[in-house]
């Protein structure tokens, strides 16, 4: 291609880009936008409800653990040997 022809073609291409006509939205554009808005709103709601559900589950599990640990809190048990040791100490009885 000759340099002149090449330059002309470059200018032509650039002008085609510059003179691009404005486009107008198709007839479905508004409807599709409403659909997308509704879809995003429902996704958001689902996300929030899932988040709330997980939060409630965590709280319930924690409450369960607390109740479980309170119920099973072991009372200090003393064995017979310990009791005898205490008595012997109080009565100043040496084991030797």
């Amino acid at each position, binding site marked *: *291609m000759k340099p002149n022809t*090449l*330059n002309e*073609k*470059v200018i032509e*291409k*650039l002008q*085609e*880009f*510059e003179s*691009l006509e*404005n*486009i*107008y*939205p*198709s007839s479905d*554009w508004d409807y*599709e*936008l409403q659909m*997308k*808005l509704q879809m*995003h709103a429902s996704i958001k709601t689902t996300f929030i409800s899932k988040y709330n559900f997980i939060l409630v589950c965590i709280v319930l599990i924690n409450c369960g653990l607390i109740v479980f640990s309170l119920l099973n809190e072991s009372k200090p048990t003393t064995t017979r040997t310990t009791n005898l040791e205490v008595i012997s100490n109080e009565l100043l009885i040496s084991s030797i």
Partner: protein
Amino acid sequence: MGDKTAFNQLVHHYRSSVITTCYRFLLHQQDAEDVSQDVFVAVYQSLSSFRGDAKLSTWIYRITVSKCLDEIKKRNRKKRISSLGKLLHIDIFSDWISGGTMPDTALHENERLREVEIVLNTLPENQRIAFTLSKIDGFSTTEIAEIMNITTVAVESLIYRAKKKTTQELVILLKNND
């Protein structure tokens, strides 16, 4: 209710200019319509967080440019995956990974702008934004500067460099095609 009416008015006011802006970036009508809808969804979602630091129009066009650039990145990623698939002879998998559309056929609806699109893809992001916006009626250098959050001098410089690079790349491309 009032919010919805206000939003509908906003959509009605900016719809055409947002679609036109998207079309200038994407050079594909259907994609431009899809992305423009995404722009308004994003606007709707973050309208409450709009602080009024910039003009509403500037804020909307910032979102528009950002969405268009995301779409272009997505396209380029699809192109790369598709090329890789062709190279490795696994077209079916690469089609599936890239979302099913073959970029070569889907992207260049406007065949006469194919070369321009290829050349625009070689421009750095900020040059592409400044150059593309400068070609849309109604965008002054000041407005482009506001959208890009840079000075007007910087915008002029970006446009100048973009023009220069576009011309150079077009010459190379057309020479190779010949």
